[in-house]
């Protein structure tokens, strides 16, 4: 082994042109890989930290459904096929979640998208999170900065308008919104028809760490958001019952039914809408009839779960899955990334694109390196033939070529990692400001301070090893076929 290393090391030093060509390709490639992946990892970690801490928690419990369900609703064609499902057996799930020692906080939520208008003027759209302020703030204590006014009082209704949304709306209407102003929120869907709510602005806020997606989110009392999301249990029209139905219902004590139902949702604070503010409509599919519906009080679309430590994530997923299976509850957990939706996916998508580009570069590098090695090996046929003639087995010369390539690759990789680390250090010190929405999405926020990612370093060395192994495969095959006769022939 010593002699192999000696020859390999000295060959690397002696063949300066080959070493320089391969070394530079490898070093630059690895530098790009380290910087790029560290950059992406930092952004991804930032997005993860910031979504978990401020918007999604570690886990999101929803009703069981197919499709790409996020905190912002379905983000695929499922949205056309069905509404966001309610969480079944919500109370039982909350009770179970509360019993788990690693669950730090729970936050129920409902989501809807609404067009905002004032009088006759349509101003724009906003995403609404229907929340209970106390629980939301307990779950995400650091993400909301109240700029004016405040949350609605318990038992009251209202909307805490995102400053970014307000600014967009103000451009349309020409004056500044203040707490106490009222806005019309309209939601339309194929499942629930059109729903309109007039809601008073109780305050203006901003998310301390935001991005283009979250800048569209305003916070509203859950009752109004439920209505806008079409979460109703029936219609207020008097129903005509057959005599058999009347006879059946006559045997049931209606009081006991509703009191028992209420007890199920005892721990959930639900604000009943004030009757005089209800003037919403439901345009049912094809009928065009205007009907009044009753809010499905106590129904939630999302239960966000924050864990005391991220290490419990897998265990939590298992525990919830087991609980749902045992209890026959049609619910499921989704991780923060699914909850975060398109933005997080886009960030990861960009990373995939980057890695694809790196893969293409790696293939090109392999071809260049392989050619260089083939030339180098061809030039050394006499030397290799001599080794074979004087007693070196094929395995010896194969190891020699592989070690030489690996040595060269490893050294180049170290230089690449070092250079990449240096670049990252500088970028970390100066910080990268997102100059537009695209970069804000990539950075996972308004600024990125990339840090050296050890997974990127490990990946780089895996790529080095792979490139080295693949590049040396063909030259090694040539070497393996080299007969000791070559030594004699080249000598003559």
């Amino acid at each position: 082994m010593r002699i192999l290393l000696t020859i390999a090391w000295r060959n690397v030093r002696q063949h300066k042109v080959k070493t320089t060509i391969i070394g530079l390709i490898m070093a630059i490639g690895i530098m790009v890989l380290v910087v790029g992946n560290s950059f992406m990892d930092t952004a991804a970690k930032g997005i993860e930290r910031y979504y978990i801490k401020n918007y999604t928690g570690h886990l999101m419990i929803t009703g069981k459904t197919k499709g790409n369900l996020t905190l912002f609703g379905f983000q695929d064609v499922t949205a056309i096929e069905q509404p966001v499902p309610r969480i079944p057996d919500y109370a039982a799930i909350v009770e179970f979640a509360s019993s788990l020692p690693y669950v730090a906080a729970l936050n129920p939520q409902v989501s809807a998208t609404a067009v905002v208008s004032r009088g006759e003027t349509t101003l724009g759209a906003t995403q609404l999170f229907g929340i209970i302020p106390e629980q939301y703030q307990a779950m995400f204590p650091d993400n909301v900065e109240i700029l004016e006014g405040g949350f609605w009082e318990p038992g009251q209704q209202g909307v805490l308008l995102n400053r970014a949304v307000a600014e967009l709306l103000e451009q349309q209407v020409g004056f500044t919104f203040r707490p106490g102003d009222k806005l019309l929120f309209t939601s339309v869907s194929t499942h629930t028809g059109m729903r309109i709510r007039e809601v008073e602005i109780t305050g203006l806020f901003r998310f301390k760490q935001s991005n283009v997606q979250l800048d569209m989110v305003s916070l509203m009392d859950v009752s109004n958001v439920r209505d806008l999301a079409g979460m109703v249990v029936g219609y207020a029209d008097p129903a005509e019952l057959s005599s058999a139905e009347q006879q059946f219902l006559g045997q049931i004590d209606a009081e006991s039914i509703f009191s028992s139902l209420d007890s199920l949702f005892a721990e959930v604070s639900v604000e009943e809408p004030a009757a005089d503010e209800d003037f919403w409509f439901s345009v049912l599919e094809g009928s065009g009839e205007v009907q009044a519906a009753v809010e499905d009080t106590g129904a939630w679309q999302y239960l966000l779960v924050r864990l005391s430590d991220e290490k419990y994530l897998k265990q939590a997923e298992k525990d919830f899955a087991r609980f749902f299976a045992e209890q026959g509850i049609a619910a499921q957990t989704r991780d923060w990334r699914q909850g975060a939706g398109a933005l997080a996916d886009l960030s990861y998508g960009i990373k995939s694109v980057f890695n694809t580009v790196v893969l293409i570069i790696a293939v090109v590098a392999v071809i260049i390196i392989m050619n260089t090695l083939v030339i180098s090996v061809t030039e050394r046929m006499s030397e290799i033939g001599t080794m074979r003639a004087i007693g070196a087995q094929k395995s010896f010369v194969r190891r020699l070529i592989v070690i030489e390539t690996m040595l060269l690759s490893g050294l180049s990789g170290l230089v690449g990692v070092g250079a990449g680390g240096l670049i990252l250090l500088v970028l970390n010190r100066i910080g990268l400001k997102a100059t537009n929405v695209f970069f804000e999405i990539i950075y996972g926020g308004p600024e990125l301070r990339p840090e050296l990612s050890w997974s990127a370093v490990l990946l780089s060395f895996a790529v080095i090893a792979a490139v080295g192994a693949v590049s040396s495969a063909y030259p090694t095959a040539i070497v393996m076929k080299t007969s000791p006769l070559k030594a004699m022939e080249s000598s003559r």
Partner: protein
Amino acid sequence: MAIVELQDVKKIYYLGKAEVHALRGVTFSIEKGDFVSIVGPSGSGKSTILNLIGCIDQPTSGMVKINGTVTQGLSDRELTNLRHKTVGFIFQSFNLIPVLNVYENIEFPLLLGKDRPGKKEMREWIEYLIGAVGLADHTHHKANELSGGQRQRVAIARALVTKPEIVLADEPTANLDSKTGQSIIELMKKMNAELNTTFIFSTHDTTIMSIADHVIRLLDGVVVEDSKAQAAAGGLV
């Protein structure tokens, strides 16, 4: 005792569709400790015979026996082992490994085998060989820092380091001036006498030829003169 035996050895090379008959039924044997010169004009088959004895090529037909082992049918690994244990090579262009110094070049064949001598024994043996070939002052010089004659001396030491039964030298003086060539042949003869190693070398040089105690002359792939065989048969050498 015959260390090398060739019986009716034929070797045909194929150049495209053309057949080149390099050896047309060669038979001879070489005794242990002989200092053998294989002579003949270009294309007579000298190199082919050295390749066959060195186990780096196989005959088309006939038998090649080296130190009691028939080479036909051996695997590449077995042939390599046989070469390593039995044969040392001296090449026309020296063929030293350029990145290794004199000591390391000589040491190299020893490191390829599994049955290595102890470190101390190995060092003493290599130093003895370096001294014997007159390169004690050049132990740490690389090949490109040596003259042609010095390089060939290194090659001789390298060929002898594994204590082989046979050393093959393919025109060892062809790339050297006559004076250096003479000194190299004298060195080979000296080592032949000291170590009782069989030396087999091909050459055009009639001066060198005269030092050999066994001359095999080839012409067009056929042995036309075998001095030992003729002597044994009572003929003229």
